């Protein structure tokens, strides 16, 4: 009885799938899906060779400090960093005093309340504050950016596939639309107000090229601020903002894996010992 019903149900599912399959195949032949510009011209990120990559990667403190400077002078004009506090910058190698000064001098102030009148006000940042957003709210952000919303960057390198390399590639990937693309897909011309970038998912990004010339940021440690260098540095910095515990994670991981590998051998030894003389 069970088997007869099963046979009928099974035949039913297979039959319906047969109809669906026929539909898929005939559509694929009569009306094949058109090629798209995104499909053909989208590029996967180039490897930026960041020191944090790999199983036991570490941060380069100098690079993180340079990356912070790029963020501060270029990205921070539009992008927030809402999960990062000023005190976290001590992890980049700054002293408590330096962080305090950095927070004090940060151009955007922290929203606050006037203690005398209760009215909305702003005050200077202190180390325990989160990095303030350049816009008071989403409407203001969109109004200032041609209706595009600059995303928060705290988690950017984890919120995109191959994130760190993606950030570095995207920042250096701006170019004119290839003639071949326009020839094949005349409708895919980049709309005005957007910018062609093959590393962006749909090829046209609202963000104007942020890194426009070498030397845009002056580095304190003598590194040449080429566009590629600035892009890599800010990608490294955003890897840190997304995963500030990366180094301790890698360190703990190495110790744990070595410990457990030894433990595996011990358990194998115990197993052999217990089973000695028992055929199985």
């Amino acid at each position, binding site marked *: 009885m069970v088997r007869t019903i099963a046979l009928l149900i099974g035949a039913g599912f297979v039959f319906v799938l047969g109809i669906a399959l*026929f539909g898929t195949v005939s559509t694929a032949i009569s009306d094949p899906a058109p090629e798209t510009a995104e499909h053909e011209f989208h590029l996967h990120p180039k490897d930026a060779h960041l020191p944090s990559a790999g199983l036991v990667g570490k941060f380069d403190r100098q690079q993180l400090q340079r990356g912070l400077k790029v963020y501060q002078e270029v990205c921070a004009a539009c992008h927030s960093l809402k999960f990062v506090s000023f005190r976290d910058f001590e992890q980049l190698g700054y002293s408590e005093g330096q962080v305090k000064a950095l927070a004090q001098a940060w151009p955007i102030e922290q929203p606050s309340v006037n203690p005398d009148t209760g009215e909305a006000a702003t005050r200077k940042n202190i180390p325990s504050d989160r990095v303030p957003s350049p816009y008071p709210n989403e409407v203001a952000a969109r109004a200032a950016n041609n209706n595009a919303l600059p995303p928060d960057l705290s988690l950017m390198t*984890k919120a995109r596939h191959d994130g760190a390399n993606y950030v570095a590639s995207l920042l250096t990937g701006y170019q004119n639309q290839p003639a071949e693309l326009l020839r094949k897909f005349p409708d895919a011309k980049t709309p005005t107000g957007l910018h062609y970038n093959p590393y962006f998912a749909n090829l046209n990004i609202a963000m104007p090229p942020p890194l426009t010339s070498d030397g845009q940021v002056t580095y304190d440690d003598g590194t040449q601020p080429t566009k590629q260098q600035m892009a890599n540095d800010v990608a490294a910095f955003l890897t840190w903002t997304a995963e500030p515990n990366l180094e301790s994670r890698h360190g703990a991981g*190495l110790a744990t894996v070595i410990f457990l590998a030894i433990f595996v051998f011990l358990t194998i030894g115990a197993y052999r010992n217990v089973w000695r003389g028992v055929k199985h």
Partner: protein
Amino acid sequence: MSFPWAKHYEPKQPLMRWMDEKLPLPRLVYNAVGAGYPVPRNLNYFWNFGVLAGVALVCQIVTGIVLAMHYGANALVAFGSVEHIMRDVNGGWFLRYAHANGASMFLAVVYIHIGRGLYYGSYKAPREMVWLLGVVIFLLMMATAFMGYVLPWGQMSFWGAQVITGFFSAIPLVGEPIRILLLGGYAPDNAALNRFFSLHYLLPFVIAGVIILHIWALHIPGSNNPTGVDVKGEQDTVPFHPYYTAKDGVGVAVFFLIFAALIFFSPNLLGHPDNYIEANPLSTPAHIVPEWYFLPFYAILKSFTADFILTGKLWGVLAMFGSILLLFFLPWLDSSPVRSANYRPTYRWFLVVLLVDVLILGYIGGAEASARNVIIGQIATAYYFAHFLIILPLVSRTERPRPLPNSITEAVLAKHGGTSPAQTALAH
């Protein structure tokens, strides 16, 4: 249950004797996973995965309870509270990565456990109840994993909840009211997040309860073994402790080694980048995909692209639930008296095809819905149902099994070629 030759618990210390009289808990443990449980001597490493699933559940409960101390189950703060755990809570990143990857480890272990049961016929008489309870545990795990994935309130959390609760709206007439009842609103929001958190906290303990029934039911006939032949006498078994506690020890150590490598070196490998973007009801991700362990079922859902009497969507939902519910009938679909596929020359190859088929379904579930992928998915889905509902019942009737060994011990000795330990020692 027990075999007559099972060792008896005899406490020697006065304190343990006193305990045994008042509350015989040590006796229960002794008979369940101690020397009082005789187990076939020929179990291979696939028999580790039941214990490993238990270990994984304990890891999930421990990390989950601590995470719940820091997490905020409110749509306004949930995403930020997860980042608070990652950045400000001591060892919070470890707890969260252990919990997220622990779910993957748990499901992976359980899939191998189910596969072991399929191959060695552990679902057959007299162990049907063990299998049925196992399918119940699997369903509870799927519900728990789904609701847990919603809690970080990222984009995939939100849209996953939207898609999965949307299945219910495929049911005619009552579908939409059911969906609204489940979500507590018209779309996933604070009400949904709160009830998912509550149930996500509850269900693991329900799972633990059903696991107790699962083990209880197992201990009545005793464990199956790779030959599928019943235990005939004392020479066929060894006490669970120390023999299988030692063997499980190896499995547990390897489990933690792989688990640690995932947590520490590639914690986001199995997750989706979009879940690091906060939930936004106004922005739909380009590809909504579930976690890897649901991909085969997602592929089945997507394969029903044509309407026939019912809408394609309803067929998909029925098939997706049916693909798991049919497991409840497996003990009666397979009429072959031979348990182990080692002795079933035809069925064995269909099982290998099924394994490849499920892997293909997993790939298709996560791939873009191009015509080629949809076609592959439809063929693979058809095989999945045909395997369980058509091929298995027919093969189990017509197949001529290979001769079974007379006993477990005979099979063990045959494997060792009858050589004595002395000769083996000389050969080295």
